[in-house]
């Protein structure tokens, strides 16, 4: 390279590092990208007196799963909806105060409460504090006037931030429901649970790169009359919702190979660990696939990286869906395919597929 080019190259890099240093020093906005906000768990709202229109009431908001990072704003929005919405009718929070018994922040006295907007409470600390523990953290607000309507579901929209503007650097968020009722204090807790739903899938829909040829139901996979010129493909949608922090796994197995009298259709040769493309029509086999790209074991996207690959059932549980944390309506589509050979004896071949959802430990 000539002398002139060398000079320009060296000057270029000098300029590059100089500008980089200046920007690094003076542009925190470029450097500190917003944190990924996490969802709080095990939330509850305890109200000292739940009767409508009662004054001087204390509200205790409790959460676990708290991110231990520097927090500068805690925001509570009392609303008639899980998101946005309006303050519950008759509720007044403008006279509220933060109680020193709160444990979300190590030093409640160092926090400034803003209560000027009815229904919205912001607690800020310019230097910020890190919650001492991740579990059972509380924010206690006193001096609130209850809404005037009993029996209606209301919400506390709770969020924390790493900035005092209560809008940027989101840390955690969670929503709790509560109601007013005459006579007794109400404390609502969110119980841990796991919900598992199986739904049928219509024909002519995609399942991991294949197209269904029949319509299934939640309890049956009617593969119809299968010929040597066309395999039959069905699918089901598996939906899991769980607030158990560890997540879930769904497994599939069958009771035996599809059987008609003394005859059976063998399992497809691909395995759960190494699924493979299903043979073209004319080969007898029965197998399954899944569109979950993040399974727990082995190569997590082994079914989806190529797509339209299948594994053979066994009588042992095989992983078809996985969620690593609490999820709301996580849907996985599993497919079933059967082919027959020219030598497959005529008959109706049937089996039972068992789908099992378990929490992870």
């Amino acid at each position, binding site marked *: 390279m000539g002398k002139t080019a060398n000079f320009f190259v060296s*000057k270029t890099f000098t300029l590059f590092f100089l500008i980089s240093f200046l920007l690094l020093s003076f542009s925190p906005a470029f450097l500190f990208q917003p*944190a990924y906000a996490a969802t709080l768990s095990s939330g509850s709202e305890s109200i000292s007196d739940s009767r409508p229109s009662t004054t001087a009431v204390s509200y205790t908001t409790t959460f676990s799963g708290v991110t231990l*990072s520097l927090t500068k704003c805690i925001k509570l929005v009392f609303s008639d909806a899980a998101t946005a919405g309006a303050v519950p009718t008759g509720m007044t929070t403008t006279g509220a105060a933060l109680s020193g018994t709160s444990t979300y922040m190590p030093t409640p006295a160092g926090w400034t409460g803003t209560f000027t907007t009815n229904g919205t409470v912001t607690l800020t600390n310019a230097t910020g504090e890190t919650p001492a523990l991740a579990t059972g953290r509380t924010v206690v607000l006193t001096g609130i006037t209850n809404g005037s309507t009993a029996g209606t579901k209301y919400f506390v929209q709770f969020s924390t931030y790493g900035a005092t503007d209560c809008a940027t650097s989101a840390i955690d968020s969670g929503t709790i429901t509560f109601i007013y009722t005459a006579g007794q204090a109400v404390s609502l807790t969110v119980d841990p649970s796991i*919900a598992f739903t199986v739904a049928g899938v219509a024909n002519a829909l995609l399942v991991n790169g294949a197209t269904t040829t029949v319509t299934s139901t*939640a309890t049956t996979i*009617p593969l119809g009359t299968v010929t040597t010129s066309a395999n039959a493909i069905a699918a089901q949608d598996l939906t899991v919702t769980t607030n158990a922090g560890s997540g879930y796994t769904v497994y599939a197995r069958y009771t035996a190979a599809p059987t008609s009298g003394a005859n059976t259709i063998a399992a497809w040769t691909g395995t759960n660990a190494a699924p493979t493309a299903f043979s073209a029509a004319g080969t007898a086999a029965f197998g399954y696939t899944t569109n979950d790209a993040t399974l727990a074991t082995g190569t997590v996207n082994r079914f989806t990286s190529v797509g339209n690959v299948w594994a053979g059932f066994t009588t042992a549980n095989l992983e078809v869906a996985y969620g690593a944390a609490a999820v709301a309506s996580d849907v996985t589509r599993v497919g079933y395919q059967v082919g027959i050979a020219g030598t497959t004896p005529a008959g109706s071949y049937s089996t039972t597929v*068992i789908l099992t959802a378990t929490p992870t*430990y």
Partner: protein
Amino acid sequence: MNQLRRFFLIAIPLVFFAAIVVFSQTAEQRVGMILSPPTFEITARRGEKITNIVRFENPNDFPLNIVTSVRNFTAQGEEGAISLTNEESPYSLTSWVEISPKGRAVRAKSTEQFNFTINVPENAEAGGHFGSLIFSTKPPEGASQTGAAVSQEVASLILLKVPGVTSTSWDIESFSPEKSVFWSNPVSFIVRVKNTGSVHVKPVGRIELTDIFGKKTVLEVPNKNVFPGAIRRLESSGAVPLIGYYRAKLFLEVAGKQKTRELSFFALPGKVLLIIFAIVLLLFIVARRSKGRLGRAVRVLFGRE
């Protein structure tokens, strides 16, 4: 008129029959089951009898016939997945557990309680014991064509500790950042904990990230069980200022005993550096090629004129 009457006499029953078929098909399009709680973590002494309940909710518009059973399970992989098994091992629990009732029809949109009892034998081995309560639907019978009936199951796990002389032994198998250089947030870390004892442990921990100015950011390590003989993979992530070199120190604690590991990594503003490089490269090209006032200005900037 007679023809019209005949038409309605035939058509109306057909319509009702079709509606029955449609609605009965619709009722089976979706079957849900809800179990609470999904996990029990219990401590029980030798000879103790523990009773508890698990709630089963039928969220469907039709009743569900539920069959209950108890099975053992073992850890599978490092992500907390389990493998249900009927095989017995020193960690098995099924022979100690009874669930009642064994079967029940749960009405539509209702919740039923099922009771279970754990009878811990007098000679039970101290340590962890694991089992699951399985709630199953009965598959339909009598398939008239090639296909499969589907049975649905949902499980609740029991993690039982029997106090006594146990071997609580664990170690940090590995602690590593997902990358050695992070060009954007979040920064994330993988912690793998190995349990070499006879009882499941649930480490509590944090990762302290210290930048070049000594400022700390703390990330929580998820609080999850590690089974005897298994390794559990834990992920922790968060945001830090992208200002270069960091030290990360892992603190994990079980029953008052703490273990630590340290590593270092870089967190740099990749997008910003890329933009700066592109600007400077553009200036370089302009300086080299442009003979006009702009090129001269750039050459002046570079000190060549």
